[in-house]
């Protein structure tokens, strides 16, 4: 579903040059949730903005659903972003003049879904995040954690194929963080490809695979897990 091939990203030039990504290969299947972990400045957000076609790589290829993003027109790319990619930004990015439910419904409406249907879908997404009662509030009337969950509802609403989330639980306590990860995971179980960036190991551990980034390079990743049967076997002490 998502494939990065030898992706590099250089910001600036000359002495101010920053190599944010250096030859990253990453492939995420539909149905798979991948977590990207790494210290601050290791290139996690850069990876996500490139995967979300919000920025172009300096070199390398980005394929989404087998299509090379570089070969797409601006319009096609914009449509892809609107329709297929759900994006949770590190700083939520809610639109201040719109209520919570309007924020969530916006991508659907932009995509031609009728206002009533978009609103119903948005309310349902908010309800799944326990926010039904906050639907009519504006972003400045929401707590940090509530804003974050609205941003997540906006990302999962509609028919997404790719979900990209940048520290989606930064402002959340562990109960709400867990609810968000359960939601992302269940979206992926339904066939969506998901990438979640975090430096929180507990959240990363919801993923099928964890990729470790360091200085713009993938340095390691977890092996596919055999299953937890052995964990609580007799003799294993809690």
């Amino acid at each position, binding site marked *: 579903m998502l494939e990065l091939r030898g992706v590099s990203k250089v910001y600036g030039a000359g002495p101010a040059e920053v190599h944010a990504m250096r030859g990253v290969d990453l492939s995420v299947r539909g149905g798979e949730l991948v977590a990207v972990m790494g210290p601050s400045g290791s290139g996690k957000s850069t990876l996500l903005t490139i995967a979300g076609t919000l920025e172009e790589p300096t070199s390398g290829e980005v394929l989404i659903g087998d299509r090379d993003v570089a070969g797409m027109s601006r319009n096609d790319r914009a449509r892809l972003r609107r329709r297929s990619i759900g994006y949770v930004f590190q700083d939520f990015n809610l639109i201040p003049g719109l209520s919570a439910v309007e924020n969530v419904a916006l991508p659907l409406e932009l995509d031609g879904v009728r206002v009533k249907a978009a609103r119903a879908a948005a309310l349902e997404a908010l309800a799944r995040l326990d926010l039904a009662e906050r639907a009519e509030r504006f972003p400045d009337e929401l707590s940090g954690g509530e804003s974050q969950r609205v941003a997540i509802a906006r990302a999962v609403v509609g028919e997404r194929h790719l979900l990209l989330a940048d520290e989606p639980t930064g402002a959340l306590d562990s109960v709400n963080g867990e609810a968000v990860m359960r939601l992302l995971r269940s979206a992926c179980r339904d066939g969506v490809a998901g990438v979640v960036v975090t430096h929180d*190991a*507990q959240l990363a551990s919801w993923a099928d695979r964890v990729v470790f980034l360091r200085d713009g390079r993938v340095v390691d*990743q977890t092996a596919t*897990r055999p299953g937890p049967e052995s964990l*609580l076997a007799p003799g294993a002490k*809690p």
Partner: protein
Amino acid sequence: MSVRYALLALLSEGSKYGLQLRQEFEDRTGDAWPLNVGQVYTTLQRLERDGLVESDGSDGPQNVFSITPEGAEELTAWLRTPPDVVPPPRNELVIKVLVGTRVPGVDVPELLQLHRRRMVEAMQDYTHLKGEMSRDDVELGLVVDSELFRIEAIVRWLDAADARLKKLPPPNRGVTGPRRRRIRLGVR
């Protein structure tokens, strides 16, 4: 150790047979803490000897146990006693990393990453279990959460070690060089 308090807790709900105690103990600790019949009976005998539990004196499996007022008092006191926070005698990982910085040819960031990956894999297993289990299974959830927080602390320590070791000058392996300050670990 706390098996005795778990048994006291079960008896605080009412009198019970030994076998019943074992079954209930396992039910509540989510099978995470298996114990055998022998353990239950020896613990009960000690509790009886200490006057914290009394039995009706019947034979074998017919024997019914009850908690005494002293037992109830002891249980309440135990619940409110903070757990031991003194570090374990040796923290294996800390020692490995300290030793690793001194062994020629060891890539310490790589060593840290290896342990980080293993820890995250262990967390994935527990989280998977959490994802599969029923949300009503509060008791198993508590056990799993505690394991997750414990392992997460190790990952965070690895991250902190990574950042700290960046500041370490290249190791001084000669006989010259200043003596490093000795570090006392929390050895009991």
